[in-house]
């Protein structure tokens, strides 16, 4: 089981690295969106610091939604997804390895670059640490629930926007606790409550997301 998980993830990474563009596009999109806000809202440090967490988190959400359709679409088009469904591997393993690969290619890079953007927004160092922590806990949720959304809209006309409409409401708790953790450090409140709630939501999503993705894939390929 674990072995199958490993080599499917390796296959996903190998495929992604052969199409470097996709991975970099998501990262550049994240940086561009996060850098647009000061241009739109004005460079006043106090203001930027207050909204930094929200901006970074929303940019991460949008970047994730942008990259979700590719999770299954290419394999669906050339028939390899169908082969995975008839293979002896439990569908849960396939969905989990796809979601993990998506996180390694989008969630993780976003989390690692976020502190740089936080500096742009004049965030103090301890807030940067909490920003990184909140993203590391929160971005897997984007991949887990996102994979369910991608499976539901597989092959559906207008999938991209529809996918956004489906998953963004489900990401509200991640945005609330993720951004909340950072802003609370700015006003002297201990962020542990936010981070542990974020972790709780991650645990719940790792239950709901894969179940929904498996059911949705079976429906999509019926």
């Amino acid at each position: 089981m674990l072995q199958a998980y490993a080599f499917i993830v390796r296959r996903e990474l190998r495929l992604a690295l052969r199409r470097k563009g996709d991975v970099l596009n998501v990262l550049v999109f994240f940086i561009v969106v996060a850098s647009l806000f000061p241009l739109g809202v004005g460079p006043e440090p106090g203001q930027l610091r207050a909204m930094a967490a929200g901006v970074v988190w929303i940019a991460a959400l949008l970047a994730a939604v942008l990259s979700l359709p590719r999770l299954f679409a290419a394999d669906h088009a050339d028939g390899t997804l169908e082969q995975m469904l008839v293979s002896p591997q439990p569908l849960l393993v396939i969905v989990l390895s796809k979601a993990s690969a998506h996180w390694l290619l989008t969630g993780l890079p976003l989390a690692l670059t976020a502190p740089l953007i936080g500096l742009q927004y004049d965030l103090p160092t301890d807030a940067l640490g909490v920003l990184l922590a909140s993203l590391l806990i929160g971005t897997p949720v984007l991949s887990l629930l996102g994979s369910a959304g991608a499976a539901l809209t597989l092959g559906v006309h207008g999938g991209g926007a529809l996918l956004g409409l489906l998953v963004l409401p489900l990401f509200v708790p991640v945005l609330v606790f993720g951004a909340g953790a950072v802003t609370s450090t700015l006003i002297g409140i201990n962020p542990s409550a936010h981070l542990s709630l974020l972790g709780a939501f991650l645990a719940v999503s790792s239950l709901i997301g894969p179940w929904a993705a498996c059911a949705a894939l079976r429906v999509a390929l019926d």
Partner: protein
Amino acid sequence: MLAIVAGVTLIAVAAALVLNAFQGNVVFFFSPSQIAAKEAPLDRTFRVGGMVESGSLKRRADGLTVEFIVTDTAKSIPVVYTGILPDLFKEGKGVVAQGKLGPDGAFHASEVLAKHDENYMPPEAAHALSKAEADKAAKSVVPPGGNR
């Protein structure tokens, strides 16, 4: 079978984390006693919460800066605020202010928040209630979240 075990552990982890979030000293704001006991951060903005002491509201000559005293019936702290007070701000009612401790020991607020409660009842019942509230408020006030 494995899926069920994984499912149960995930739910258990989620529940544990949620409980942990509540037990932790979830401070919405610091009470005047905590500030007096030096628990609040000195060089950083934080929030103070308590009751506005009746009769303590004073407006300075410049017409914009106000001073009032926030108390939790044990300790109290003077607050200085430049700006328009929210229309629900009343003496004797609860308030939360965000700002920093000044060198003069007063709390310089950058933001003052007030919130009305959701009780709806005819005027007569309200008078009876507010009289009871006043007596109770004098005895003890506990901010939500019960920090240690």
